[in-house]
């Protein structure tokens, strides 16, 4: 799994961090998403999928073939 995020779309909601804190964080100054791990281990995939589904800016993209 390979994760990309569109920073310009991110609204700083932080839903991703609530769901998958090992993969996502937020910048202190403006809350924009920080991708901690672009290719997380298998045991994180479920949470990452949920984060991508819940992200209210639809800015987390997943590539399962990578």
């Amino acid at each position, binding site marked *: 799994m390979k994760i990309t995020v569109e920073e310009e779309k991110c609204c*700083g909601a932080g839903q991703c961090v*609530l769901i998958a804190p090992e993969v996502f964080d937020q910048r202190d100054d403006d809350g924009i998403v920080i991708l901690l791990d672009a290719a997380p281990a298998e045991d994180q995939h479920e949470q990452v999928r949920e984060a991508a589904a819940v992200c209210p800016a639809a800015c987390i993209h997943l590539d399962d073939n990578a």
Partner: protein
Amino acid sequence: MTAVRSVLVVGASAAGLTTAEALRRKGFTGTLTLLGAERELPYDRPPLSKQVLSGAWEPERAQLRSTQALAALDAEFVLGDPAVGFDADSREVTTASGRTLTADAVVIATGVTARTLPDQRGVRGTHVVRNLEDAAALRADLLSARRVVVIGDGVLGAETAATARQMGLDVTLVGPQAAPMTEQLGPLVAGHLADLHLRNGVELRGGVLLDALHTQGGAVTGLRLSDGTELEADVVVTAVGCVPATDWLGNSGLNLDNGVVCDAHCRAAPGVWAVGDVARWHHQGLGRPVRLENRTNASEQGLVVAADILGNGKPYLPVPYFWTDQFDVKLQVHGIASPVAQAEVVEGDPVDGRFVVRLEGPLGPECVLGWNMPKQARVQRADLVDYYTRPRQPVTP
């Protein structure tokens, strides 16, 4: 319950699409159909009053998912064909073009429609902002306008006023409250929001309503407020709230009361669920029915409904959340501000333009608001979880 082999989602936007995607992700392999009134592929609404209105984004950028991602969903999209009737017993949906669709599970995700004022029907230069089409029409008018009046001082009115002002127009924001968004933010933060608008040159008219629109040759030229003030305007935007899109459910047998009434699992009837802006479900944490009109609710509720359809449901107990962007401020609101709550700045300082406010109610902290501090507000949200998720007995009045 026998296994669900087909799901029909009515309303192909944030809530409907999230539900469909979650069904597939959770292993649903049956037939999946999404029926939508609009012709466009599913798109997101928050950018409509922000980047799409300002022109920072082309409208296509608001599309929720890429065409490939939608194809991978293996769902049939029936677009541009609104549902006009429903029977909850047979779970049969009829559409404007005469189709009849049915499924083992039907998900109602038709959202809300913008309220309009009787005066504005058919008057050129008057607008609402709900759909992509609305945003495009408003933008086109704003580009050649000088003076715009926004009626309605809730989230959408305040945000639209800010965007129009940033496009260089003279903007007046009109509404019944002392400060914009007082209901959603509480008086302290709403006061800061009023200052922000004033600093940026928006004229605020609080404590008033629209009395009459003035028109000439079918186009708006101005308006009179309830206090007798006359305002000139080339464009008038009304943001006076929304009504659940339930007209098509009139004879359905479902319980309709300010939305589709659902239980704690968002079930409206056997085999029928509601999700997103249209759903009024029993929030067990708050002990009362709740209907939320915000973007995160659309997705989070979609996940819960998908799980419930597949037999792994649980009560839906969100900490409500929305954000709004106005001028250089990103506002984050976790929880619901009640009028009696006490506000306290718990981090940062309003003087520096960055702070977090906590609203304390009789039962503990109920709302956290971030002003240019999204991350810090999200961290403080942890203190609200208990308030919203501990099942409570209904409060007897």
